[in-house]
């Protein structure tokens, strides 16, 4: 009954796509048995397609709109309208483009050191820009969220809840204190922090496994319903 459906779907555009996706799914799953040529083929295909896609999207979303087009416009303005302002604008435009080009210096061993300038700027800017955001979201907001409940204690249990969170935060912070060995009273506090961490890991593990199972169900549904038509 179902084999007829498969044959029909194979010769339509959508059906051919479903066949290819299903076979590749099984090819990847074959790794669960052991490494084999079918898995290697699908692995290479996946990597090749993703790198090809990366090249195209980088050209379309980065190189073209952020380098080629602005430089082309800048050149036409400089030679068309002219003026000191257009030259300055063009130079400003060339700085990031030149920094990007410095990355290609890696291909010439003699000048490979020049790529470090671009890398240093990239890493320095990225790391520096993340400092205020991290201070805000990982420190100030966490402090606020921990102590604000103490302003709104309206029952015994709300007090207990606030204290449980406070104790968890402080003991976990102490766990990540590296200047002192975890011994004695300090060690007991860090042990409490370890319990909190384990509870967190258990909860996130269970939660994420649930999410992964739903991904597996989605794939099995695709194979059994869209491909084989075994379930409706």
């Amino acid at each position, binding site marked *: 009954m179902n084999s007829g459906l498969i044959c029909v779907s194979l010769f339509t555009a959508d059906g051919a796509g479903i066949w290819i996706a299903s076979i590749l799914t099984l090819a*990847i799953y074959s*790794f669960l048995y052991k*490494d084999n040529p079918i*898995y*290697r083929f*699908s*692995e290479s295909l*996946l*990597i090749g*397609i*993703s*790198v090809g*896609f*990366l090249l195209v999207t980088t050209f379309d979303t980065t190189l073209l709109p952020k380098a080629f087009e602005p430089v082309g416009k800048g050149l036409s303005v400089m030679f068309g309208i002219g003026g000191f302002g257009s030259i300055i604008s063009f130079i400003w435009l060339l700085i990031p483009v030149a920094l990007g080009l410095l*990355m290609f210096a*890696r291909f010439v061993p003699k000048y490979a050191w020049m*790529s*470090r300038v671009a*890398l240093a700027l*990239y*890493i320095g800017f*990225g*790391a520096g*820009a*993340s*400092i*205020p955001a991290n*201070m*805000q979201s990982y*420190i*100030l*907001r966490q*402090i*606020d969220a*921990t*102590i*604000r*409940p*103490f*302003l709104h*204690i309206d029952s015994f249990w709300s007090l207990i809840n*606030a204290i449980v969170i*406070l104790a968890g*935060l*402080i003991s976990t*912070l*102490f766990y*990540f*204190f*590296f*200047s*002192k*060995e*975890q011994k004695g009273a300090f060690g007991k506090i860090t042990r409490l922090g370890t319990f909190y961490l384990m509870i967190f*890991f*258990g909860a*996130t*593990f269970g939660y*994420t496994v649930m999410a*992964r199972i739903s991904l597996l169900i989605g794939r099995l549904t695709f194979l059994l319903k869209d491909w084989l038509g075994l379930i409706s």
Partner: protein
Amino acid sequence: MPLQVFAFELYISDQPNDDGTRLTVEWDPLPPDDLRSIDPEIYSLLRSESPDGEFTSIDIVSRLDPSRRKIDENLATGRSYYYKLAYSDSTISWESNVAGPAAPEENWYNRSRTNVLIGILITGAFVGIFIILGRKGKSLYLRPIAGLNAMDEAIGRATEMGKPILYSSGRGKMERPASIASMNILGSVAEKVASYGTPLIFPNNDPVVTAVAQEVAREGYTKAGHADLYNPDNIYFVTDSQFGYAAAVDGIMMRERPATNLFFGTFEAESLILAETGNSIGAIQIAGTDSSIQMAFFIVACDFVLIGEELFAASGYLSGDPQVVGTLKGSDYLKVIIIIMILFGAVVGLLNQEWFVNLFLTA
């Protein structure tokens, strides 16, 4: 029907602490006297760039809105704008007086984030002091970390077995702190494997990380006095696709059979796929990540795991670099201040002193 314009005022002001793209529009309680008999629930907020020009509707205003204000966003810095409220139905067409001109101004300093600045200055001061102390040769103690103590053993095992070591920094971009810490660890690992002559394989997910990793590994090999053993072909870009990368690293593990897998950096859903495959080939595995959700997966599948900030500690611990160790010591003392602040905040919170709690509010 004839348009009726009544004396009803809107108040336009520049939105403070912004990038010069917002204006605040405020109004008196609605309805206006002239519409009291109809008492409309919804009005239109109109905007124009000239008082006599065409006004376009940008939002609706409810008379039930207790804040009596709207923030108009995505405006051009320095350009003048005019506003008015309008209401029309089959019986009446009403408009308020035109309010304006008002131009959004760019603010160089966001006063609502002064606490962020103070926090950064305090952190910077602590870190700076400890870096100076470290450079002056003061001994800065760091407690032992189990996963790091196993690092030598893991590298030694690979050497004894004559198998390579596989290193992965996950999917983090180079500017992420975990990726930077990972590169610091890579430097120390490269130095050790260079002295043992053990191959180090590092498939990458990001081209910039690849470039940095090649530089760091080259320096590690050079420091160990074995620059000739460095092979840039062992540190290569695979793909930026998450599961393409996972599939590739799994394949590499099955084919190259590394004796040791080191996973340090930012990991996402690929963490368990990598760690499980590594486990299945019997590799000794050490992992460290700042991705809180992925730590649980590493804990179940790896032999040793550096939890959260231990990853950053690892780079200081392995390299002994006073700059990294000083940063770590500085952050330790910052933690003490945070704990004191939290305890004090809890007490004053119980005493209903909201001013102290509000010190940590950020916009």
